[in-house]
């Protein structure tokens, strides 16, 4: 007689909902004519909004279910909020943009949903197997999404680079996972943790942890595993770039924190050595290379590398404040990054998308509202008060100082100063220069409202951080209670 495992179906209701929504979109795609594909976008928006209404009532428990595969704790739910919001903003920004770019594929909206599903599985996964499958579902959907741009040469090239490097990173991640499985005898994060705590320190464990860290760093675009990011961000359709730079980055952070805090906390001394290097290199390299970028999307790509490095300070600090502030950083980053891309998406240059920084010249005179909003998001990305970008940097830096990473904080401060230059340059171009020729704003009220919501949250998270920080702290309590060195 086979004993059935304990299954709590309520733990995966949000995942089931996203999958059903994707299937509904697939079915409707068959009957919608090619020039009316935006209907699918509105359908997706409606579904995601319904899901957001459900999310406050989502099932939360600290008990893993599905044979320990799925853990629907408040940490996973917080990240699911981030993923669903990222998907929602992406779809809102996509509908009109896809029309302008003459991309008439209804599959686009499905792949947003499949990628979101993959990210949700990653956040809820409490087993290396679930995490891997979620990660691949997300990655494969993103490879396809980055290949459907109008500029076929750049788009296909971006997808190819992303796929080859992404698959290599998955291979490295899996190789690390296989060592960890072999030496601990399990793929469950709790079982790995207890096996490692009982004095298991074969040298292959270090190899395994290093390889897993490399795989995760690739998905977060940390230096030296960042080389795909600028090209893919530039080549993919801008709406896909907006999605890639917020959702999957948050998902990578979610598994990074979960695996390293829950399972590898006994090896903190070893993994901080190389994460220190990844973090410092990302902050310096990202901010220095961004200076020379003429393309605003590439600039934002390097800026996202810098931010990924800064977020890692929170994990390196390895205290409650640090891990909570890394999560809070991701929440703010979602809004400021989505906002900045939201504005960049609707700035057009003649029949093309406005990528060159010179196209933004004089935007303050011709389109004051768009210029003001972009200024707000860039200031937040740079970390200027009273925006959310300042508060999260403050929290992350102070947690790192508490943990004694003085040099890393000095590097982070240096990179913040350098990054001020290229963020402010765009603002100076917008307000101090004469309007550029051929520049226009082509958008819809829906997009305006999405950008406005991003702006409101960017400010609110900077002015009253307490409730959000409280939420993040409560969410990570479950993670760090799995061991008692705090």
């Amino acid at each position, binding site marked *: 007689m086979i004993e059935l495992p304990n299954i709590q179906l309520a733990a995966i209701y949000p995942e089931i909902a996203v999958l059903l929504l994707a299937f509904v979109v697939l079915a409707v795609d068959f009957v919608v004519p090619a020039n009316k594909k935006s209907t699918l976008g509105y359908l997706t928006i409606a579904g995601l909004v319904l899901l957001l209404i459900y999310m406050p009532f989502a099932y939360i428990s600290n008990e893993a279910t599905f044979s320990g595969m799925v853990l629907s704790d408040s940490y996973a739910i917080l990240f699911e909020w981030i993923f669903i919001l990222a998907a929602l903003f992406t779809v809102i920004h996509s509908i009109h943009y896809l029309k302008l770019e003459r991309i008439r594929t209804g599959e686009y909206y499905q792949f947003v949903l499949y990628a979101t599903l993959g990210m949700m599985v990653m956040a809820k996964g409490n087993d*290396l197997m679930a995490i891997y499958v979620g990660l*691949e579902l997300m990655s494969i959907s993103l490879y396809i999404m980055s290949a459907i741009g109008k500029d076929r040469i750049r788009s296909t090239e971006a*997808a190819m680079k992303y796929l080859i490097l992404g698959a290599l990173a*998955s291979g490295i991640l899996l*190789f690390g996972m296989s060592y960890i*499985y072999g030496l601990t005898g399990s*793929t469950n994060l709790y079982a790995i943790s207890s096996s490692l705590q009982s004095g298991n320190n074969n040298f292959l464990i270090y190899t395994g942890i290093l390889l897993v860290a490399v795989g995760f760093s690739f998905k977060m675009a940390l230096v030296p595993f960042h080389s795909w990011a*600028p090209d893919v961000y530039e080549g993919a359709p801008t709406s896909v770039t907006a999605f890639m730079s917020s959702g999957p980055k948050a998902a990578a952070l979610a598994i990074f924190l979960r695996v390293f805090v829950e399972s590898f906390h006994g090896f903190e001394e070893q993994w901080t050595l190389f994460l220190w290097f990844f973090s410092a290199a990302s902050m310096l390299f990202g901010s220095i290379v961004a200076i020379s970028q003429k393309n605003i999307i590439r600039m934002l790509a390097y800026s996202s590398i810098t931010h990924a490095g800064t977020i890692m300070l929170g994990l390196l600090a390895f205290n409650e404040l640090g891990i909570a502030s890394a999560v809070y950083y991701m929440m703010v980053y979602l809004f400021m990054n989505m906002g900045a891309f939201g504005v960049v998406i609707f700035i057009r240059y003649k029949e093309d998308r406005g990528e060159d920084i010179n196209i933004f010249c004089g935007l303050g005179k011709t389109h004051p509202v768009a210029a003001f909003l972009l200024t707000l998001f860039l200031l937040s990305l740079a970390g200027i008060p009273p925006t959310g970008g300042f508060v999260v940097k403050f929290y992350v830096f102070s947690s790192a100082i508490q943990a004694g990473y003085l040099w890393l904080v000095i590097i982070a401060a240096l990179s913040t100063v350098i990054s001020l230059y290229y963020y402010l340059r765009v603002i100076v171009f917008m307000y101090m220069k004469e309007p550029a020729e051929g520049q226009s704003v082509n958008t819809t009220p829906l997009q305006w409202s999405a950008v406005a919501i991003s702006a409101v949250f960017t400010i609110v998270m900077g002015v009253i951080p307490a409730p959000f920080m409280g939420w993040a702290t409560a969410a990570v309590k479950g993670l760090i209670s799995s061991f008692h060195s705090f």
Partner: protein
Amino acid sequence: MATSIPMEYYLVLSVILFAIGVVGVISRKNIIIVLMSLELCLNAVNINFVTFSSYLGDMTGRIFAIFTMAVAAAEVAVGLAIAVNLFKVKKSVIVEDANTMKG
């Protein structure tokens, strides 16, 4: 169970296969061969999983290997589709010809 052969033999084989795969991805010019090298990496991982599974007497590793195979098939399907697309726009499947974006 192949207890007569020490576990190290399998592990060394898988490290060698994985290294060949990584070198192939980095050094080969043809995208089709790059995709084959990627498969080699993932198969090295499968050997690892099945070896550990067999020596631990635990089924999880074998199940993981099956998942890996399924995912690898999906990945290569997408990879080949993109390679076909690349050939349509560039008339070549050589990695170096995909060099439009720099910086």
